[in-house]
């Protein structure tokens, strides 16, 4: 018996546990009040940029109509938290959508779900239909005179459409290419050049709880400058991968060894990717006891990003892991910017050569210099030569090779192959690992720890 019911996605269950009460209340509140409330809660965006949600709302330009787009394009490698919220708790998000719409005087909202998520999309569409049937969406919601249309839009396979301006272009029926900044926020000029709020699924899913418990109490959960709980998706070499809802502030050691059940076969931890494929890597020697908060991560030169933690053990070839991540960004580049389009592919080619034993002694320096022409100075956050951060994100793994794994790279060159195995490819770690049903961990739905709806 799991902690939550199998029908958590239905409107009956949601309403039985207090659902849509806050949306109704919101109808009676002014925009200013709602914006202030969210500001006070200290809620940060959960899409990766960790921008204060309330402040973003306050940037909304006066022109109307304004639009709302919920970013459900979740494509950052290692991330799968939004999928759970969409599949298991669609009404929680919808309530958040209604609140956000009211706060930003929006009468047409969109939910942009990545194309590879048809099941979550079906669930959300079903939830939308349920809500519409009860008069919570459409004309005159909850019997008020407030109209709210909602369109569920399916992507078609492009990670870059998670970038909010690319997402907007995609929604307009254009190529999913990020727009130039400035303007820095779609809140100024977004969908159809109108003021537009873009928020992540998890961000809006927090709103009913904030209104419910009040900004005050919400802001006391977690870490002062990173309030509330957040979802971490743990994947890679751990015994209990999955989504965990945590208050900010625990350590990596606690997350990996306690919560995620440690590393299969008690093998050695080698590297941690703290915030999705875009984030620079951590290594146990230096970071294992760091707190998991936005700021500590930033000081250590990385980020919590989308909350995807990828754990790599001693059997992992760092060159191969880096190649795989760089390949991702090269494949997902929208192709606008010369450095991203040409540079990431070049990096991928070099890494593959090294991994396959064709590396040259100068290749690591070449790799670093090519990277430097995409992300000047090789730091995080990056000094970009590009329009959006995708290109510079491809550099993150290279920083790890430079700082922690130079020798492993050189070993590839000298050995003419991968040092981790004779054959050049490491063994499939899975064969060393036993995964049975019960080792698959528990994951929770979006509720503040002290008030489970069950």
């Amino acid at each position, binding site marked *: 018996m799991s902690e939550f019911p199998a029908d958590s996605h239905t409107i009956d269950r949601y309403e039985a546990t207090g659902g849509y009460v806050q949306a109704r209340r919101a109808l009676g509140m002014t925009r200013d009040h709602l914006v202030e409330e969210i500001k006070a809660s200290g809620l940060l965006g959960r899409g990766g940029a960790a921008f204060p949600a309330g402040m973003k709302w306050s940037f909304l330009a006066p022109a109307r109509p304004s639009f709302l787009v919920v970013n459900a394009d979740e494509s950052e490698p290692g991330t799968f938290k939004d999928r759970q919220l969409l599949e298991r708790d669609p009404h929680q998000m919808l309530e958040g959508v209604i609140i956000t719409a009211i706060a930003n005087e929006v009468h047409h909202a969109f939910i942009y779900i990545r194309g590879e998520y048809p099941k979550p999309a079906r669930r959300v569409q079903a939830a939308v239909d349920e809500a519409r049937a009860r008069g919570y969406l459409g004309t005159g919601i909850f019997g008020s005179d407030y109209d709210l249309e909602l369109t569920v839009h399916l992507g078609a396979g492009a990670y870059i459409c998670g970038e909010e301006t690319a997402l907007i272009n995609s929604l307009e029926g254009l*190529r999913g290419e990020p727009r*130039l900044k400035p303007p820095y926020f779609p809140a100024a000029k977004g969908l159809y050049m109108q003021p537009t709020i873009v928020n992540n699924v998890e961000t809006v899913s927090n709103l009913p709880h904030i209104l419910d418990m009040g900004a005050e109490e919400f802001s006391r959960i977690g870490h002062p400058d990173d309030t509330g709980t957040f979802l971490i998706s743990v994947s890679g070499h751990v015994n209990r991968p999955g989504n965990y809802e945590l208050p900010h502030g625990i350590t990596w050691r606690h997350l990996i060894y306690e919560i995620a059940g440690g590393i299969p076969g008690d093998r050695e931890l080698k590297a941690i990717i703290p915030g999705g494929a875009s984030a620079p890597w951590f290594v146990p020697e230096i970071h294992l006891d760091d707190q998991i908060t936005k700021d500590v991560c930033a000081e250590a030169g990385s980020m919590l990003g989308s909350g995807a933690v990828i754990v790599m053990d001693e059997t992992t070839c760092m060159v191969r892991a880096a190649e795989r991540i760089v390949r991702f960004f090269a*494949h997902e580049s929208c*192709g606008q910017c*010369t450095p991203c389009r040409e540079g990431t592919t070049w990096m991928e080619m070099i890494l593959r050569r090294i991994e396959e034993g064709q590396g040259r002694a100068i290749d690591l320096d070449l790799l670093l210099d090519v990277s430097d022409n995409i992300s000047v100075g090789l730091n995080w956050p990056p000094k970009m030569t590009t329009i959006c951060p995708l290109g510079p994100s491809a550099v993150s793994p290279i920083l790890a090779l430079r700082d922690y794994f130079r020798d492993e790279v050189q070993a590839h060159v000298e050995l003419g192959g991968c040092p981790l195995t004779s054959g050049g490819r490491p063994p499939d770690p899975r064969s060393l690992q036993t995964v049975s049903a019960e080792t698959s961990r528990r994951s929770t739905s979006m509720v503040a720890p002290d008030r489970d709806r069950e």
Partner: protein
Amino acid sequence: MGQTVTITIDGVEHQVAAGSLLIRAAQDTGTYIPRFCWHERMKPVGMCRMCLVEVQGPRGPMLITACTNEVAEGMVVYTGNDTVRKAQEGVLEFLLANHPLDCPVCDKGGECPLQDQAFSHGPGESRFVEIKRNYEKPIAISSLVLLDRERCILCARCTRFSEEISGDPLIEFKSRANVTEVNTFPDHPFASYFSGNTIQICPVGALTSVQYRFRARPWDLQMVESSGLHDTAHPRVSVHVSQNQVLRLVGVDNDATNHGWLSDKERFGFQYLGSEHRLTSPLIRRHGELVEVGWAEALDHVAERITLVGDSDGGEAFAVIGGAHGSNEDAYALSKFARVVLGTNNVDARLDDSLASHFLAATVDRALIGDIDTADTILVWGPDLKEEHPTLYLRVRRAAQELGVRLVVVHPRVTGLDDRTAIKANYRPGAGFVLLDEIAEGKHAALSEALSAPRVVALVGQASLADGPHLAEAVAAYVRSKAGSARILPLARRANLFGALDMGLAPDLLPGRVGADQAGRAALAGAWGEIPATRGKDTKAMLEGLGSSEIRFLLLVGADPVRDVPDPRPGPAALEAAEFVVSIDLFLNDSNRGADVIFPASGFAEKEGTATNIEGRVQKLNSVVPGPGQTRPDWAILADIADRAGRSIGLFSAETIAKEISEVAPAYDRVTWDFLEWEARDGAVVPLGGAPVLSHIPVALKGDIAPSAELTLHVGRTLYDDGVMMRHTPNLHRLAPGPVAHLNPEDAKRAGALHGHKVRVVTKHGDGEFTAVLDEGTPPGVVYVPFNQPGADPLGTDAVVRVTAVGK
């Protein structure tokens, strides 16, 4: 400049225009920031990243693209420090990584920004040891343009041009990331009237010209500026020549007319100059055959005839048709020749297809092309600008799209501007007055409201041959009555027609926008001597006069009144009946084939002179190549005939003619070559200052009332047709639509016509077989037949038409 801000570029403070782009501001103050994707006339996209510079940001120094960021007060910019140099060299290395090293065989070699940058900033040899991207070498994306995707740097200039500027997005990005390419859609070629511009703005050799391919290297080219004559806006061009051959035309960016853009007709339409069919020596008819003779013989022969006819029948026995294709100097010589040597006012440069001469020449509130940008409302009630006035089309399109000008288009069917109109009204050909009355009666509130704006620019002309010559004048009059301030641009399309009219090539006009009335004649008598008083005939009347043998002598100057007139009937008979026909032309055509004497004329780029565009802008035409064989300018031929006829017109060089024009033609007061070359680089709009010129009094008479026929014929022009020059320009001639009849699917069904099958189209004046095109853009009740198409039978101007299916 208005508002300014202070910025520091590389340690030096500058005052620059507020709101301007950094890349522009830097350039204006002497700092060139390298760029590939940025183009002055298009919206920035910041894609190539070549223009990266460093500025102080909130979180320390940051790199930004100079082409996408506006200057801000106190901005501190570094365009060449180590960070910037490395970033730019990095971008360049990325661009070159996959770029082929085929500069020696690339048409762009020697004039390639990428090549130049590579020399100045580029790394020595490439660190890119991987395999380059490869694509099939040049693919023809149209019969005029080749695309080499290996050379493309994806700057999006071509795709932006075709979407933003010309409005036919047929070339687009494809795929993404590292395999992004530019391409067309399968079986949808880059069929744009403006495709050549993409070749011109491509910063590498990815887009090249079929016509120019491998013809020359930039360093052997001699380049001379002139203005194009295919388009009455006279876009500024640079003529590129090698070994006395015109090899290509390139648009010159100027605010006044074309912003650097050219239609493909202007850009590629010079092939006829080198045609082997050019006339190269004088011809005389002997025993029914045209034979080559020396100049003296031909000139004397004509001179004798003139004396003979003149002595017996006087000036009324002469007719002069044409003169719109030459320079102002040619036109002036012809005008003077007709009045002084032939003693007649029977002279007309309009081939019966355009508006009243006074309306064209003497509309005092005539709009400048530039007024299009600042209007509140633009009315286009006339031809489809995309087909007949490409330069104006681009200006109007931009105004409606970028500058928020409200565009109103009134036309019998769909036009190239429809996707940008605020209001579009269709009407049955010939029923223009009916619609106008309805509008005046307030039946089209939105439309009259739009025309009541403070600043209205009205481009008016003949939308369809069925529209009478006065509809445009009535529309202009209505606009004047509604608008706060109205500016009128009467539309007519023959090369230098406006120059010709300004030189008096109309029965009722004399040089300098002066009427051929008592006062006008008196004013000119000092310079020209006595000028005939009898009222002159227009083209139509002259052809009739020839038919009735009232006129015995016909002089054709670059005119083909048999084919190139709306009403095909009188022409052949008239030419048949003519006792003596002299032609000055570049080619034999259906009208001069039977002539008695033919003189070989020099054409565009073969002679010096001036020309006057649709807004009255006088610009210099320059001679770049010698004409073939014994060709000579019209004025020289006419001057010689005059001398031999014993009535010299005293004209010895184009420049002295220009001087004489500036002295005797009021509107052209002070417009000398020196003035144009030194003081008015973009030309001078006449009249300069308040020179007294006649003003046109609009006639308010009614035109023909709506035909009640089930189907009405709409004959309109297309950019490419069967005109003489097009016929000798195969590249474009083959792109003419040919004998087609556009039908609304409904009407087609009723007539039993299938798309692509043959139909017979019958009017009072003519009939012929055409290929049916089923077309939603042609409203029910209208049949659209493009004018003067290769292989098409002329149908005349009668609006009533019958269509029957003939099958495959």
